[in-house]
């Protein structure tokens, strides 16, 4: 009487109708939820009707003989683990809603996988009356999805376990273990490649032992926690001070922080208490560096003097609040962190306003080094 498909949708209709009633009665949510649930109920009812009418599309509803002999008319054979998985997912879902978001996501993923697998399996079992053929088409459809996902999950597990192991063992031991395992894999690989006679079961056994070993050790290491890794602290420096006090700062290996080493607007060098500039395309050391306005100019500061020094870029003064009754000004100043002898620092400057045209005007633009009065170099912004 009822085909398998219409039974499924009938169940859906009843369930969603019940949900609508419960939801609506308890006024748990706004009208949107109720409308949504009513729509779901209607859709299920509609699908039930269609499936019933077309007999799951398997045979013409007029073909009474076909109805009797169609695969859908027979009870689909086979066992399936997917109802169980789907049940687990459905159970996890409310747990997730209470415990945490991550579990909700897990539940949703499990549910979705179970749904897809279950549906394809159910459909393929009714595809023909030949179970071997049916299994074949299930594989053809699902393997392209299952195999990569399973492969990725397996690999991910191995990699994750491996990383936990590496983070757990001392740094030096890590290298040795790495080398050892890599050698083992190569030897094992060449063994299989050259000795074709190696028993298949031996290979499988070795692989299993290896995988279980890595994952087991990984889980153990993850539980035990990683080794202590010393952090490379970069002391923060109070922004805007740009003073001569360099204590408590300075990035010793600062030149490592400089990626851009070519096509800079200028390299400013502190040597023997003096600043000089190297500018791309300009021979010698110009008396002043001309930098275009409103343009990011990449500047590299190199300290060749003994001590910790920083480069300060003085870009005149700007009005604090143009709408204020009496205008107040503040210095426009930027600076690098202090850097040890031989080190580099990098700074990007973008002068907004031109430098004073009159060379005797106050607030000239310049590079300076706090604590080294003789180190001054002019900046011209046209």
């Amino acid at each position, binding site marked *: 009487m009822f085909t398998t498909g219409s039974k499924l949708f009938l169940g859906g209709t009843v369930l969603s109708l019940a949900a609508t009633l419960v939801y609506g009665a308890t006024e748990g949510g706004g009208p949107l939820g109720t409308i949504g649930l009513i729509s779901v109920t209607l859709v299920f009812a509609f699908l039930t009707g269609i499936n019933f009418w077309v007999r799951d599309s398997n045979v013409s509803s007029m073909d009474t003989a076909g109805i009797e002999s169609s695969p859908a008319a027979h009870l689909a054979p086979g066992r399936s683990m997917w109802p169980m998985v789907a049940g687990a997912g459905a159970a996890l879902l409310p747990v997730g809603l209470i415990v945490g978001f991550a579990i909700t996501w897990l539940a949703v993923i499990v549910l979705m996988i179970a749904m897809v697998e279950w549906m394809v399996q159910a459909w393929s079992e009714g595809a023909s009356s030949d179970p071997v053929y049916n299994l074949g088409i299930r594989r053809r459809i699902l393997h392209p999805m299952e195999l990569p996902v399973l492969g990725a999950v397996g690999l991910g597990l191995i990699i994750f376990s491996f990383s936990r192991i590496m983070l757990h063992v001392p740094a030096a031991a890590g290298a040795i273990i790495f080398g050892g395992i890599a050698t083992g894999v190569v030897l094992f690989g060449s063994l299989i490649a050259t000795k074709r006679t190696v028993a298949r079961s031996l290979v499988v056994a070795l692989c299993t032992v290896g995988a279980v070993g890595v994952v087991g050790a990984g889980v153990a290491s993850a539980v035990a926690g990683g080794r202590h890794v010393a952090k490379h602290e970069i002391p923060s420096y109070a922004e805007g001070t740009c003073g001569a006090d360099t204590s408590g700062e300075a990035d010793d290996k600062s030149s490592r922080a400089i990626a*851009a080493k070519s*096509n*800079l*607007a200028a390299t400013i060098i502190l040597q023997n208490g003096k600043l000089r500039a190297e500018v*791309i*395309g*300009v*021979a010698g050391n*110009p*008396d*002043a560096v*001309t930098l*275009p*306005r*409103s*343009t*990011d100019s*990449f500047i590299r500061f190199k300290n060749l003097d003994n001590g910790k020094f920083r480069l300060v870029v003085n870009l005149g003064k700007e009005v604090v609040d143009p709408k204020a009754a009496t205008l107040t000004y503040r210095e426009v100043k930027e600076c690098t962190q202090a850097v040890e002898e031989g080190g580099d620092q990098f700074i*990007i400057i*973008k002068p*907004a*306003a*031109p430098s004073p*045209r009159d060379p005797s005007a106050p607030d000239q633009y310049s590079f300076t080094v706090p604590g080294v009065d003789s180190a001054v170099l002019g900046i*011209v912004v*046209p």
Partner: protein
Amino acid sequence: MTVPSNGGSRFVSRARRLALPGAAIAALTFLSSCAKDAPQDTFQPKGDNARNIDKLQRTPFYIAGAVFVVVFAVVMFCVFKFRDRGQKIPKQTHGKPALEIALTIVPALILVGIGIPTVKTLFMLAKTSDTQCVINVTGQQWWWEYDYPVQEGCGGITEPIVTSGEIVFPAKMNVLLKITSRDVIHSFWIPALNGKRDAVPGRVQTLRMEADHPGIYAGQCTEFCGLSHAYMRMDAVALDAAGFETWKTNQLAAYESPADGTAAKTGESTFLTQCSRCHQVNGLVNANGDPVISRPDQYVYSGAAPNLTNLMTRYDFAGASFDLITDDCRDKLWSAQPADFSALYLQGVTPECFDPVNLREWLRNAPGKKPMYADPAKLGPTDGKTRGMPNLNLTEDQIDQIISYLTERK
């Protein structure tokens, strides 16, 4: 197998029908390469750097041309000679080591032959040690700014000069451009003088310029940079040494405010209220007598607007896309002989040559003349700043006054 005779004749008649248009297209393509008015022709170098490139490309061009002709001839020969007339398939051979080795070695030798002079030319084009003049070139949507840093080069520059659209430099001098960008990547290219160089934000790249003779050389941005990329043009202007000195002096001359009571004077005050927040005019002072410093960084996305101090010493504007002079005067300037060019160029936009139409349209509605995201409704993505010059809704009177004011900026 025999070809049905009617099919064959249909083929022939179709070929005949296509022959004429085909030949016409080929002839046109060929003839267009001889066009006289082709200022961006890479085959007509007008300076050392472009000539080096041209020398390098010509040999491979001819070799490649010969290879093309030979291969094409052989293919055609085979197609006709061995076409399917129902004959038996000839005996097939496979592999001929001597031929294969020859066909590997000969192209390798050709490549080495091209490679050596290429590397040599690359080094020549990258050289900066013989620089005699440095000019900073900054690209932004959709115009180029040129600033001349203080230097001993270029015959000595004591105060920075800022200009746009037309890059002016002395002929016969090794000029080094230092190219960067304020917003997106652009590319600077004057085909008659050198290859192209990208303008990349945060990076300074160099490009040599040298012109044999005084003259004006056209170019355009060659890296797609947004809506008005096509309107991002530039002219390179080479002057003779004396002419360049005059040009520099003129660029740095003291500001002259228009005479009181003139339309230009009214234009100056309109300029102060409407324009000077974006456009710098050196020497311009406000009502209190304080110098007016433009702050395009607060209004324009790229942070810059052209310096208008000497607008009328240039012949075009807005990315060298619109003329300030009549077509006649333009033709005269572009076809001037090298000996006469500098003097003619230094006249600037004279009253006889001035054609205000383009400028008027620009001031009426700049984004209408040159598409720019300057529509206030669409400024959200650019922090409320315009890309390009906005429509300022000026009245016709204001436009007249501003034009009188601008015509004095020489």
